[in-house]
């Protein structure tokens, strides 16, 4: 929450100036305008600085599916929990620990004695694998995190990949006629990897932006300006980090190790070509291949309960958290039902913490 991303100094004066211009544009637009913040880290900034309350009433900021933990398929969580309970040591990023699968979470499995190590960097997983050759790394994340997993696979790390490509989800969102969005705030660090070109095909106002409150407000201003002028451009407000061509080394690494596959997004459904599957060349590192039978057996045993959880609709900006019957009554950060409540970037988690 301190300005570390840009080395800029947050200044109330600057935010006030940007807000003044936003108010002018909002007035001239008049109608309700919905802007989707795709990235969970942007939702954090919006909540931490109370930006929603500073905007004019007709400008709505809606959260999107940019929380990789929230959209990891229940089957993937179940499979990895099953592997852990079957004796496979796991290495995971901390975010995934509390996500509920069909009946329990990785944390529950750890309490039952499963060997689950929380890591900050994938290099710790490689180190751990030297002592525990059966180690499986649970790969979760979009294009910002996938290059590290690709790098580690080349070093021989065995991985269960639940990594996803983000632009196909954007395409799916925009095709869904039930979802009304007038502009997109594109993810800052995914963009640092993939650059600008994957977004060019979307015919909607878009701004790639950084993570300071001024960045987000500037993105809102730039989107409203486009909307007022009837434009549908892609603008990059995060040029200090995001280059037009992105990070080619990282993209090449992803493409070398992973190929596209169809993937299930929790609560949303199957999105074509959105999953990262480990290529045949590296199949020795693919936990889904090595433990194919164990995983099939785990998934056949798992009974998925139908719940009233509406995370899927929340992730697509169709409803607000308080429209979910479980929100706050049963589902809370200390007792989460759905993934949106578990992740610090989950829409429901943020709403729960910051809505007072």
């Amino acid at each position, binding site marked *: 929450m301190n300005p*570390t*991303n*840009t*080395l*800029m100094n947050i200044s109330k004066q*600057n935010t006030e*100036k*940007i807000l003044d*211009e936003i108010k002018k544009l909002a007035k001239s637009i008049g109608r309700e305008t919905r802007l989707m913040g795709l*990235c*969970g*880290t942007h939702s954090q900034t919006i909540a931490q600085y109370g930006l929603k309350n500073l905007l004019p009433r007709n400008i709505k900021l809606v959260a999107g599916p*940019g*929380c*990789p933990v929230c959209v990891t398929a229940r089957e993937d969580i179940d499979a990895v929990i099953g592997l852990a309970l079957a004796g496979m040591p796991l290495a995971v*990023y901390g975010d995934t620990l509390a996500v509920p699968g069909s009946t329990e979470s990785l944390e529950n499995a750890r309490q039952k004695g499963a060997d689950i190590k929380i890591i*900050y*960097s*994938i*290099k710790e997983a490689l180190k751990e694998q030297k002592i525990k050759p059966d180690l499986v790394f649970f790969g979760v*994340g*979009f294009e*910002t*995190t996938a*290059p*590290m997993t690709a*790098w580690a696979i080349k070093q021989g790390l065995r991985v269960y990949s639940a990594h996803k490509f983000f632009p196909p989800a954007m395409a799916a969102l925009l095709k869904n006629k039930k979802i009304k969005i007038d502009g997109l705030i594109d*993810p*800052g*660090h*995914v963009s*640092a*990897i993939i650059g600008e070109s994957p977004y060019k095909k979307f015919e909607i106002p878009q701004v790639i932006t*950084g993570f*300071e409150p*001024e*960045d987000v407000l*500037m993105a809102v*201003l*730039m989107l409203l*300006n486009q909307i007022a002028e009837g434009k549908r451009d892609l603008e990059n*407000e995060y*040029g*200090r*980090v*995001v*280059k037009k061509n992105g*990070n080619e*080394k*990282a993209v090449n*690494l992803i493409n070398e190790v992973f190929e596209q596959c169809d993937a299930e997004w929790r609560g949303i459904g199957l999105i074509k070509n959105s999953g990262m599957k480990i290529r045949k060349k590296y199949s020795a590192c693919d936990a889904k291949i090595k433990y194919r039978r164990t995983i099939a057996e785990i998934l056949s045993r798992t009974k998925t309960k139908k719940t009233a959880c509406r995370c899927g609709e929340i992730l697509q900006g169709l409803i607000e958290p308080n429209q979910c019957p479980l929100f706050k009554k049963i589902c809370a950060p200390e007792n989460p039902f759905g993934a949106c409540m578990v992740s610090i*970037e989950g829409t429901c988690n943020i709403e729960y913490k910051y809505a007072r």
Partner: protein
Amino acid sequence: MCLAIPGKIISIKKQNATVDFRGIKKEVDISLVSAKPGDYVVVHTGFAVGKLDKKSANESYKYFDEYIKTKHGKNT
């Protein structure tokens, strides 16, 4: 969806750099970027994913200044 924070490269040894995050020094893998000591990199899970162009660190204001000039034909 991706926590990544900027730090300054102090020294480099092969693919690893010692990066200073405002007083916290950590080894960071820089194989995904081309960087030299003195550069600022943005770090995610122990890897540099991009460089922070310090000169354009105030770019959001540049955008605002340009917007005002275009919209209202004056300087802020």
